[in-house]
């Protein structure tokens, strides 16, 4: 069974540009989570989608946005890139919203470098 897949794996963008990161959850999972892992800042929660709706949002500016499609895949969009957006962006998925004991499975991440 395929795990959580993310694309692209690495990318370099220029400050001010926009980027879209993509995530496919494990088959059957309806919840998708996005986390940012910047150097020295640990894992910061960005967004959580379930059944196509945004369920929760972390403390990030509005230029970080996303969506979840009917097939439960998800996109993370970052506009007006800043140097401090350079980070590993991790997508994760879990079974249906409703039981917090469900394991959240992570993808390998997308490495974004802003120059």
């Amino acid at each position, binding site marked *: 069974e395929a795990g*959580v897949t993310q694309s692209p794996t690495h990318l370099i963008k220029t400050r001010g540009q926009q980027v879209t990161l993509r995530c496919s959850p494990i088959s059957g999972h309806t*919840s998708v*989570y996005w*986390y940012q892992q910047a150097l020295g800042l*640990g*894992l910061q*929660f960005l967004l*959580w989608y*379930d059944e196509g709706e945004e*369920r*929760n949002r972390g403390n990030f500016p509005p230029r970080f946005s996303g969506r979840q499609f009917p097939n439960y895949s998800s996109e993370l969009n970052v506009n007006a890139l800043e140097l401090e957006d350079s980070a590993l962006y*991790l997508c*994760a998925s879990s079974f249906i*919203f*409703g*039981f*917090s*004991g469900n*394991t*959240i*499975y*992570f*993808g*390998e*991440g997308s490495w974004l470098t802003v120059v």
Partner: protein
Amino acid sequence: AQSVTQLDSQVPVFEEAPVELRCNYSSSVSVYLFWYVQYPNQGLQLLLKYLSGSTLVKGINGFEAEFNKSQTSFHLRKPSVHISDTAEYFCAVRLNNAGNMLTFGGGTRLMVKP
């Protein structure tokens, strides 16, 4: 709101020695507890989780953790580490209610030396 504190940012240890990685949490409601491992240049992999029942939880790769409600701790232990255990370890909590995201600690880098 919940929070997680990993008391040690780095833990150096010699191969075949025991290790304990410490994790404390705070929450006004009951939580589920998790330990994840991140090997270099990879995503996160679940080591173990505590939902209910026995407070001693066994995970993959010989790791175990003990939930202590009175001390609000969930320390991770391994009796004998290997070089391959060198990685970043993250403790996380999730509120015990209808669906919620994980809140992570700052991580502990385990460095196993030969």
